[in-house]
């Protein structure tokens, strides 16, 4: 990987943002970039006093409570200059006034290709050549190019399920006939197939895609797939699950979409994770609810990675037990809704739906 990215000016910073978010057209949005560690966040601009309160609470949760940071850059995107500048001023004031608040700056209003620095009064235009150079630098780093709009992220998850659907009944019947040993072998095959994809990046045949879709609802099979994901390799597994979401018939699409949400979240791509969750019908699989909660709470995926390590998991469980004795009211909605079982339960659920 060639790390050549450089940002030296406001228009370079503005051209950088679509590559962070994964889509180019950013309208009526506030983007906040942390300096010195912490996430980048995008949120719709508020359109009422009530929406402004929620907007400030959501941003404060991220930058004052969950991820305090040394400084932030604020960029408001939109045609409505008054709405952009009001949101910049309110958010800037909220962050700076807090005891734990970061330094704020630059604060930019971006309307199309024009930008205005609210703090120093300078203005300028994003040079098209800057956007081209930024795209080239991301391409050099092997990154995917942003799609045009957030809606295009959803459109890219729609494909033709016809070919896989032809093989699905036989694949499901095969799994239903499996005894425990055969199911373990099938889960082992899934792990091997995932490892193979990580090395050759060749998408599954229609037969193998149906085979994965027939078994992935099983908790043991999901565990094998989930345990392979790290923050580093998550982009590769996002390709794998994205392809399956595109090719899966509706009745078996929810689980690969939840897996795509997880890999997208782990790679740090919150927008794609939300869009993957939006593909899922109700009631959502338990994994989808977990990812949604992590996204809502802006939990750093590195914390999830740490939870995958046995020692860390033991420590977390001790903390959870202590918390259960002292503050039972802090149980999450997710846990209440799904009646969590013990960690030492059976690894594999009985196949079938």
């Amino acid at each position: 990987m060639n790390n050549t990215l450089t940002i030296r000016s406001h228009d370079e910073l503005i051209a950088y943002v679509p590559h962070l978010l994964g889509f180019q057209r950013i309208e009526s949005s506030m983007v906040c970039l942390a300096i010195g560690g912490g996430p980048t966040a995008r949120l719709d601009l508020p359109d009422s006093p009530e929406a402004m309160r929620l907007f400030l609470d959501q941003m404060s949760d991220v930058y004052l409570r969950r991820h305090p940071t040394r400084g932030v850059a604020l960029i408001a995107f939109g045609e409505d200059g008054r709405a952009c500048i009001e949101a910049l001023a309110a958010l800037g004031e909220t962050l700076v006034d807090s005891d734990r608040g970061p330094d704020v700056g630059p604060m930019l209003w971006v309307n199309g290709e024009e930008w205005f620095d609210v703090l120093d009064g300078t203005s300028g235009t994003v040079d098209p050549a800057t956007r081209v150079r930024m795209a080239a630098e991301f391409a050099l780093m092997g990154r995917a190019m942003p799609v045009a709009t957030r809606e295009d992220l959803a459109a890219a998850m729609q494909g033709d399920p016809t070919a896989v659907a032809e093989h699905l009944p036989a694949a499901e019947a095969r799994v239903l006939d499996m005894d425990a040993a055969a199911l373990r072998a099938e889960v082992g095959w899934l792990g091997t197939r995932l490892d193979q994809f990580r090395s050759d990046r060749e998408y599954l045949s229609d037969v193998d895609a149906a085979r994965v879709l027939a078994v992935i609802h099983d908790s043991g099979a999901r565990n094998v797939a989930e345990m392979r994901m790290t923050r580093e390799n998550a982009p590769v597994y996002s390709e794998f699950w994205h392809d399956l979401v595109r090719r899966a018939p509706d009745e078996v699409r929810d689980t690969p979409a939840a897996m795509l949400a997880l890999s997208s979240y782990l790679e740090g791509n919150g927008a794609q994770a939300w869009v993957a969750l939006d593909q899922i019908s109700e009631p959502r699989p338990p994994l989808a609810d977990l990812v949604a909660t992590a996204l809502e709470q802006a939990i750093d995926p590195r914390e999830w990675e740490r939870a995958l390590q046995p020692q860390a998991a033991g420590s977390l469980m001790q903390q959870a037990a202590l918390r259960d004795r002292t503050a039972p009211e802090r149980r999450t909605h997710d846990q209440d809704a799904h009646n969590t079982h013990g960690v030492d339960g059976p690894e594999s659920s009985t196949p079938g739906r």
Partner: protein
Amino acid sequence: MQNTRSRLEKRLAQLLTTTPPLAARPAPGQPRIDVVHLSLADQDRLDMCLRE
């Protein structure tokens, strides 16, 4: 699909119980926040640029 959690999902649920809830939880239909967590290398690059 079954509503049975995998081992990892149980661990993740435990992690969420140890995370203090945030003040603002948008209701359905209200704007959701897109959060991007940069790699350490990307964060370093951004920090250097914005410091200048």
